[in-house]
């Protein structure tokens, strides 16, 4: 008897759920993102840059570190599409290899940052009170530390390497993510579905991991995309100051560092313009993608 009633109700109520295919929240986000042209351009550019970095050995076929002192500072030619540097190494090859380091630093340091931020922010937001106070005051302290002096000290003590840069970026960057996650969880934990989870006897850990964190993903993803961009910039800045990755490993930043003399800037544009443009492209496309994701993930927009 109840089943029959169910069938009738279905006909009456079921307007929303009639469409045949099941749409998860993520498919909807994907659809909205595809409509945003700028974000798609950003996605395409960042994909091309990543692919170029992954397949760097096949782009020119010239080894990365082979010097050719007979052909230093050569302008772009058919043999070296972007010319050579002061040691005769092919610029295009080094640019592609540089992407490996710069993009890896961006992605890995941001992942680390998110890991720390989500764990601490989640705990602070869920438990509140004393725990929240302690964690957020620590976050305040970390975000008060001036970035460059700390980074320089850290790198000077531990030595310049790609891993140390990632660690510095993560350690100094997590408070931003932790604040976002905490703020979202503070409001989410008061929602009735959390009370329902308590009533169902679900444990704290599972409540945080499977109910709260997935609902904060939207803000985390947005903050991550822009975070990757700023990590790339910071890596470039540190490499430019000579604190980043040690030569001969190329990164976009230390390639610009190599070209910082007045004479080079004036006469050998191919040594500094291409890395500059690539950094600019990577950062702006990640920012565009982040903006697009923010709009696509906004649950208030329903389409």
């Amino acid at each position, binding site marked *: 008897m109840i089943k029959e009633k169910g069938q009738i109700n279905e006909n009456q109520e079921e*307007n929303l759920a009639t469409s045949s295919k099941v749409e998860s929240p993520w498919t909807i986000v994907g659809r909205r993102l595809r409509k945003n042209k700028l974000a798609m351009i950003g996605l395409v550019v960042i994909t091309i840059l990543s692919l170029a970095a992954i397949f760097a050995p096949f782009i020119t076929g010239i080894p990365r570190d082979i010097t050719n002192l007979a052909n230093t500072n050569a302008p772009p030619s058919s043999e070296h599409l972007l010319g050579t540097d002061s040691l005769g190494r092919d610029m295009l090859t080094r640019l592609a290899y540089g992407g490996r380091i710069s993009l890896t630093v961006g992605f890995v340091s941001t992942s680390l940052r998110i890991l720390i931020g989500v764990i601490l922010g989640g705990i602070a937001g869920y438990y509140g009170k004393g725990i929240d106070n302690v964690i957020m005051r620590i976050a305040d302290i970390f975000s008060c530390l001036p970035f460059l002096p700390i980074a320089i000290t850290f790198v000077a003590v531990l030595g310049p390497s790609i891993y140390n840069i990632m660690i510095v970026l993560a350690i100094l960057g997590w408070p931003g993510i932790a604040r976002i996650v905490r703020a979202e969880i503070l409001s989410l934990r008061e929602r009735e579905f959390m009370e329902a989870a308590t009533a169902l006897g679900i444990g704290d850990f*599972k409540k945080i991991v499977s109910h709260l964190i997935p609902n904060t993903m939207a803000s985390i993803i947005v903050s991550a995309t822009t975070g990757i961009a700023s990590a790339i910039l910071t890596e470039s800045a540190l490499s430019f100051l000579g604190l980043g990755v040690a030569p001969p490993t190329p990164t976009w930043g230390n390639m610009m560092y190599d070209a910082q003399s007045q004479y080079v800037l004036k006469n050998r544009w191919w040594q500094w313009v291409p890395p500059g443009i690539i950094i600019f492209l990577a950062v702006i496309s990640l920012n565009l993608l982040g903006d697009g994701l923010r709009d696509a993930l906004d649950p208030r927009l329903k389409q």
Partner: protein
Amino acid sequence: MAEKLIETNDLLEVKNLKKYFPIKGGFLKKTIGHVKAVEDVSFTIKKGETLGIVGESGCGKSTTGRTLLRLLEKTDGEVYYDGREIYGLPKDEMIKLRTKMQIVFQDPYSSLNPRKTVSQICGEALVEHGLAKKGKEVNEIVSDVIQKCGLAPYHIRRYPHEFSGGQRQRIGIARALALNPEFIVCDEPVSALDVSIQSQVINLLMDLQEEMGLTYLFISHDLSVVKHISDRIGVMYLGSLVELAPKDDLYAEPLHPYTQALLSAIPIADPTYKKKRIILKGDIPSPANPPLGCRFHTRCPYAMDKCKTEVPEFKEAKPGHFVACHLV
């Protein structure tokens, strides 16, 4: 706390339950007062019956419901479920007991996690309590339950945003039923729905009660809904239970002046019928600073001097008919 066995077939017994929320203020966030949301509430619920609780907004109906499920911690008093004091239970026992006591919420929008499918929403607890294995087994149980609640089996893979308000409320009911509970607190389950869907959901709840032998605490501010579904009705005012009686007794002969005023506000579908409405004067006092004596004396048309100083006892005026008033 020693476990106490009750001889009667009471499933739930609430004794002098109190719930105060602290008011924090000042520079150091000191507690400067309390909102007395629930003050000295006592009642019992028999196995298989529906106890309706009515009252205005903010009178502590929902807080009572949540406190006796231990979703909020009590301030004082005792709650016995099946003879066991639930606040005396250790954590793991309490988690086990949660499979027996469930809640259906008012707002079908905020009570479902938007990132989970129906199967996950209703099946999560089954996995958590080890009652079913993740995957096929859970899906089978969930699709059974949602069919009982009037949804179709293929709905289990859908997300809440794909459903209408009434359907969402059915999912909320299915979530509560998945664990096969004995007792369900229905916290205004139909107030957020429009009238045509309200009756469907109420009939569903009544059918399920018959089929599964459920016991309900039905919280609502809608008098006609409560009358339809309840066996007994309790009336709350400013955190206290003022009257508790079998449904027919209460509607035929309300003893407390507040209940009389409340019942006189039910509209009657007859334009020629002239009835006497009791209009209460003034506003409901603040629960942070409730009046001394009888809490209703500031608005009661029959208030006496005694009412201002003495708290009336909640006593049995007639068999099964409890009331807290000096007049009776």
